């Protein structure tokens, strides 16, 4: 049961990694990485039950916060080109293709 869930999660991880590699825009990659973070959290949670150690669930929860903060930082960089303050003159950047 848990093994089937694990195989499913690994398959979605492979798909998210492919999307990160292929791109083509910045936002595709950011979205793929955000999803990859969620999948890793699920992997940690399922792994805890698979190994008989449900306390891994707490680690997964803490990782959710780290993932959230990281994505916010990356999005702020792409949107404002600045991590410290908001620069309102610079709002139209970020949708170029890479």
């Amino acid at each position: 049961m848990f093994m089937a869930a694990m195989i499913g999660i690994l398959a979605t991880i492979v798909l998210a990694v492919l999307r990160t590699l292929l791109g083509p825009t910045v936002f595709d990659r950011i979205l793929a990485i955000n999803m990859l973070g969620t999948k890793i959290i699920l992997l940690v949670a399922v792994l805890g039950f698979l190994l008989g150690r449900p306390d891994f669930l707490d680690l997964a929860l803490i990782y959710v916060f780290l993932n959230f903060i990281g994505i916010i930082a990356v999005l702020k960089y792409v949107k404002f080109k600045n991590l410290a303050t908001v620069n309102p003159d610079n709002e139209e950047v970020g949708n170029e293709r890479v």
Partner: protein
Amino acid sequence: MVGFIDVSLFLLLAVMAVAVILQRNLFTAVMLSSVVSLLAFGLYLTLDAVDVAFTEAAVGVGITTVLFLGTLLHTGRKEKRSPKLDWLPLLLVLISGGVLVYGTLDLPTFGDADAPIHDHVATHYLEEVEEEIHIPNVVTAVLASYRGYDTLGEVTVIFTAMIAVFMLLSGLPRRSEEEEMP
């Protein structure tokens, strides 16, 4: 069962590492390297090294990515192509990597009960920690008491580095103030 997860995570890790090397757009390379850290996080967890996994998650995925992004603000977003391939550094890297792989051949296998680390002082720590120190958590007892001086040294080094960074940063002119000048 867990071996299957290990192998698939390792394969993805290798693919991502090659992709980071080949990527010429630096922003994308930073994103891909955060994926490498993410996969390493999962891998450390399957190897039952939860503390290492969390250091990797906080430092590798979080702080390093943000620091790289901050660096990209001051540099370009494209990598400059080097005019020709330098063979000497490549050769040195290949040789040192080969030596390191050769060194791993002598390591005890993963989970080996006869590995040297298990017969030295670890048994003593595990058996006597309750009577000697009265701390139920063995890792905390080792860090804070058995190797207390070692931990004190580490904390001193980190504290000194932090003070040095603060001193360096406080001497720099603010970037936004520079931009406002005509």
